[in-house]
């Protein structure tokens, strides 16, 4: 068993306390799990399931809906080249082709050294810098063939460690403010939301 390590477990519990319904913490916990392991291992999904009160199948089902959550290992750097309309118009497809050649993998593939996973991405909202890409969700653009090669070389050489944490680390800023609601208020909110959820369910009862 290798679930959350103690530090991560503490952070995970803190995240759970931010929501009146603990299942809401599911996706943030998946990000946290990826921060620890780079991807969502089965052990981690099982631990998340236990923490948020659902079955592992529900964690898996939910996580698999989202592109950023990976239930199989990915490279240390996830390079996502945008090929959606704005980037397409500025050469995003060609950039992706170049990236494939440079990294030697097709979109979805991971380089043999486990350093890079290449992805064909939908719009990343960086269209004023088209063609744009993200490495572990840090923005780069506009990127041409040379700057792409340079970027890859820099990443390989560890020159961008401060800017681009390894895959999985999304939010380096941990919440410092405690929840202001008192325990009683949280419990009252939970009871109200429990009732509202039950009512919502009754709404679609046949």
């Amino acid at each position: 068993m290798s679930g959350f390590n103690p530090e991560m477990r503490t952070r995970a519990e803190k995240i759970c306390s931010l929501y009146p319904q603990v299942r809401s913490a599911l996706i943030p916990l998946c990000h946290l799990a990826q921060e620890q392991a780079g991807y969502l291992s089965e052990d981690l999904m099982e631990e998340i399931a236990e923490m948020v009160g659902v079955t592992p199948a529900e964690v898996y089902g939910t996580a698999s809906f989202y592109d950023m959550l990976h239930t199989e290992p990915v490279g240390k750097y996830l390079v996502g080249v945008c090929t959606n309309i704005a980037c397409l118009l500025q050469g995003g497809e060609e950039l992706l082709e170049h990236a494939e050649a440079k990294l030697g993998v097709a979109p979805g593939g991971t380089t043999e050294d486990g350093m890079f996973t290449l992805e064909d991405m939908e719009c990343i909202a960086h269209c004023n810098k088209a063609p744009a890409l993200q490495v572990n969700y840090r923005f780069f653009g506009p990127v041409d063939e040379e700057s792409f090669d340079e970027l890859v070389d820099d990443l390989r050489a560890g020159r961008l460690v401060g800017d681009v944490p390894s895959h999985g680390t999304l939010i380096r800023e941990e919440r410092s403010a405690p929840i202001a609601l008192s325990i009683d208020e949280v419990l009252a909110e939970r009871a109200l939301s429990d009732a509202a959820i039950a009512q919502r369910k009754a709404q679609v009862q046949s």
Partner: protein
Amino acid sequence: MADEITFILDGKELRAEPGELIIAAAERNGVYIPRFCYHPHMPSVGVCRMCLVEVKGPRGFALSPSCYLPVTPGMEVVTDSPKVKKAQNGVLEFLLVNHPLDCPVCDKGGECPLQDQVLSYGPGESRFVEEKRHFEKPIALSSLVYLDRERCIQCDRCTRFASEVALDPLIEFVGRGDHTEVATFPDHPFASYFSGNTVQICPVGALTAKPYRFKARPWDLDQSESTCTACSLGCRISVQSSRGEITRYLGVDSEAVNHSWLCDRGRFGYESTNSDHRIVKPLLQGRDGAFEVSWKEALSKVATLIHNAKKNATPVAFIGGAKFSNEGIYSFVKLAREAIGTGLIEARVEGDVSPSLIFGTNSATINQVMDSPLIVVSSQDLKEALPVLYLRLVEAKRAGARIVELSEIATEISKISERISISQLELAQYLEGKEIDSSRSEQLSKVLDELGKLESPSFVLGRASYGSNSNVVERISASLLSKVPNMSFLHVMGSANVRGAYEMGAVTGYSYGRVESDLPTHGANGVIDILELAASREILLFVLDEDLGSSTLPSDLVNRAFEMSTVVAVASLTSQVTNVADVVLPVVASGEYDGTTTNIEGRVTRISARITPKGLSQEPSVIANEIAREIGVDLGKYESSEIFQDIVANCLTFSNLTYNMLSSGRFADGVVVPLSSTEVSLKKRRKLDPVATPGLLSTEKVGPAITYIAEEDAKPFATEQNRRPSAVSLSPSVDVDINPSRPGLKRLVVEKPLYAPNSQLDASDAMKELASEAVAFVSPSAIDSNFEGSSIILTRDDGKRVEVGYAIDDSLREDVVKLRIGVNYDVLNIVDPLANATFVTLGDK
């Protein structure tokens, strides 16, 4: 209904119930709207978009899902416009885009809602020429259910069933968009007691059941409607067969009982009927083991045994028969009481409550319980004992009922209820006036007050544990009745027709018709006494299709009884009993006989024969009659319909019932006895929707008992005579040694899981691997930290000890050990079946 509303459907003004969905209201009014994801017994999701109709809103008519919108007063709905037709056509074409169209090799081919609706509402041809989505071929979701993802149309039925109906969210959609597929968590199988229902409701051939895969084509199937006899709930089923073999059971949508669902043990139990574990010929025990004989030889041997017993004044006893039909058990009662003259006939092998409790209280119907705003349960875990009743509770809960569970251990019911942690012994004492701690006493008195205020208060009551006798249950009911006189009870019971066995007089002290009997019983009352008798002196013991070696009885006692007595086994499957019996008489199994059965509510329903009995096996009534004839007594009736007439004539509670009535549409869901004046049992059946349960309407021939349309004139309404049972006073013994004699002792709570192994489970290829070893669950603090190994020793004060595997259960009280029955039945020897409670100490090996 008084507050019905009107709306306009295709220009006609029609009625609907408030809150009724358009699709359901239309259907009741004769307009069938095509659908895939909608299922009448599941919350709607409105995703397949097949049921789109035009509904008038503030901005004119718009396409809306009729399975999602409730009818509102004056609502205008159009179901047959070109716009609607085009939308339906479009949805069907889209569904076929990625569908493999492998109908010829698909189990569902011929009864497939996709196939059928394409024919009725769909495009003439597919315009799709692109490459289809590909998945690797069928994968096992569990040992019972297989998934072919290419055929899946993402209707969310199976996943919704698992999460919303069964509360087992073990299968989920994974992926997104057109990559969505159904999956389990890696290496966590879809281990649900109810998994077979997902196969039943899959509108395509994506989910298949292992026991049925490739066994038959729908057009080869014959069916009869019948009643499941795997437990005493009496779910309605369609028994389907092909070429003389049973091929599957499907749940029939009975409003009264199962709402179309079945548990897997019931659904796949027919495998044992087909298995080679069947006893197909009479057997006699010889020096070198059993040998096959003719019926003539076997019967004459039995007659000789009876004659000798009579001559030597050897007691003759009958144990079992609770799985037989009413007619079967009735015939054996006649054989025992009238032809042989013994009062030793006892069907309550699981030690169910005394007849005075059943005869002296009003039974609640399942619907009466489910319709109540407050449902109170004190019994063993209902999910294990009566699985489909658990589904009904989940449904009631979703509809807003409050469920209160009175149990000292957490059960599956706890998940949907407020649990007051109290043992039945404590509850009995509390009700009798003994003080308990203030917080629980406050909770309990509130619940009882609320119950008392209900118009028809009911209580779900059964023995919480096989570790104590049933006296405690009688004490609880007696006290409850004195507090809430109009309380009725839904009694949680063991074998399928045990309730019928009470009415038929297969209980010591009574004969059929609830009449007390003074035939000799040698002082025995109940199955334990009879076995003790058999262990103490020679008797002639008939075992009526009961696997005594795999029951909640102590195996020591059973073995001693077998050693001393001459055993005649009437059996359908090989078991420990048939191995030791002197004579074995082959009896029919589920699917092979006609008759009636009685469920826990007292609901009498039809059982139908679908196939001819295996080998030389015979119906129990025939066996009883032949034995009687062999000893010179003519019991008269052979046909089950004739025997039923006899039952009606002799049992007041059954008066006015006819066999035909129970075979007809109106009463196909059975009639509850004793008949009540309000006739709650007559809730009308929903019209059969071929998409809700594919395979019922599509099946070619309709067997003898099944009919969805026929009406019957007979009215089984109450008469003065049969409305109320004769008053029987409850006089349980109060407060005898129920507390531990010294500190440190732990009380045993014995639980029987759904997959408790027995000869029937052994004979089912698909299910036998689901049985597990017996386990003792203990609280963490009850276990010494230096215990080694994975098993512990349970020791009784009288020195009796057993070894059993154990597991820690955080939710358990320190003074309780929960023993879950499993393959190694020997551990039950630790239970003192006559005691009010069994206490043990825990020890290391």
